[in-house]
């Protein structure tokens, strides 16, 4: 994907006589665009195949949007990131679809919602945003702005959870959608903590070994 973005950026820079700086920006934008489209398409495809489109798309978008403001642990390569992201969206989506089909008391769900968002707010207030070595957040003003955006987004997710809970008796879709949203929050917020970072780095190493093994054979 990075090679493709680089080739397209080179071609554009050559044809439009752009400077190296402009080429780098185009390449960066293309990587973001291609990765977002590619990953969303795979999740959508596998979601349709396993009949978990709603659950997997909620996981994909809720994690990614929250991550844009809160940051968190990172994978070492774009391939590793895509594989881990797709597996998480599909496997978690399947699990939430199954859990959503069970009869869970709305009172218990309400309790879980409160628990999840209190945990998320505590971690976000203490840790967010976590930057990456490739993209440092240098100004304190931006750091504060991103923390505020994380808190606001968590409150928006809380309101959406309440809407899902309100309609939960109408269809099991609302139940699995609610559980998917809650799991997205737990997963993403946990990636700001040391145990979450440890898990993600472990997954990254595992995927790296699988890719390396696949290339050798």
């Amino acid at each position, binding site marked *: 994907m990075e090679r493709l973005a680089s080739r397209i950026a080179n071609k554009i820079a050559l044809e439009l006589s752009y400077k190296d*700086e402009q080429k780098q*920006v*185009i390449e960066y934008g293309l990587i973001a665009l291609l990765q977002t489209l590619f990953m969303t398409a795979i999740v959508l495809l596998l979601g349709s195949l396993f009949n978990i489109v709603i659950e997997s798309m909620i996981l994909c978008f809720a994690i990614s949007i929250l*991550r844009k403001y809160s940051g968190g642990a990172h994978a070492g390569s774009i391939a590793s990131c895509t594989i881990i992201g797709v597996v998480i969206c599909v496997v978690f989506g399947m699990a939430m679809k199954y859990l959503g089909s069970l009869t869970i008391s709305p009172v218990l769900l309400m309790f879980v919602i409160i628990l999840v968002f209190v945990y998320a707010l505590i971690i976000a207030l203490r840790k967010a945003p976590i930057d990456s070595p490739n993209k440092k*957040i240098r100004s304190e003003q931006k750091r504060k702005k991103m923390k505020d955006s994380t808190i606001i987004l968590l409150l928006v997710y809380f309101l959406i959870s309440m809407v899902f809970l309100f309609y939960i008796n109408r269809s099991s879709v609302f139940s699995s959608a609610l559980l998917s949203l809650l799991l997205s929050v737990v997963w993403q917020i946990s990636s700001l903590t040391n145990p979450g970072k440890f898990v*993600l780095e472990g997954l990254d190493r595992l995927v790296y070994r699988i890719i390396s093994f696949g290339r050798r054979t």
Partner: protein
Amino acid sequence: MKKINMKSLYAVVAVLATFVAATVASSACFWFFYQPEEPKSLQEK
């Protein structure tokens, strides 16, 4: 004629990619768990 059309296409892709790069620059990271090195011109001073 074909050359002009291709140039227009390159210009559209360039504008779109620059817009996406600028949008991503204001966030903490890319889509999901990967963050390539940010171009210097997009970095906050």
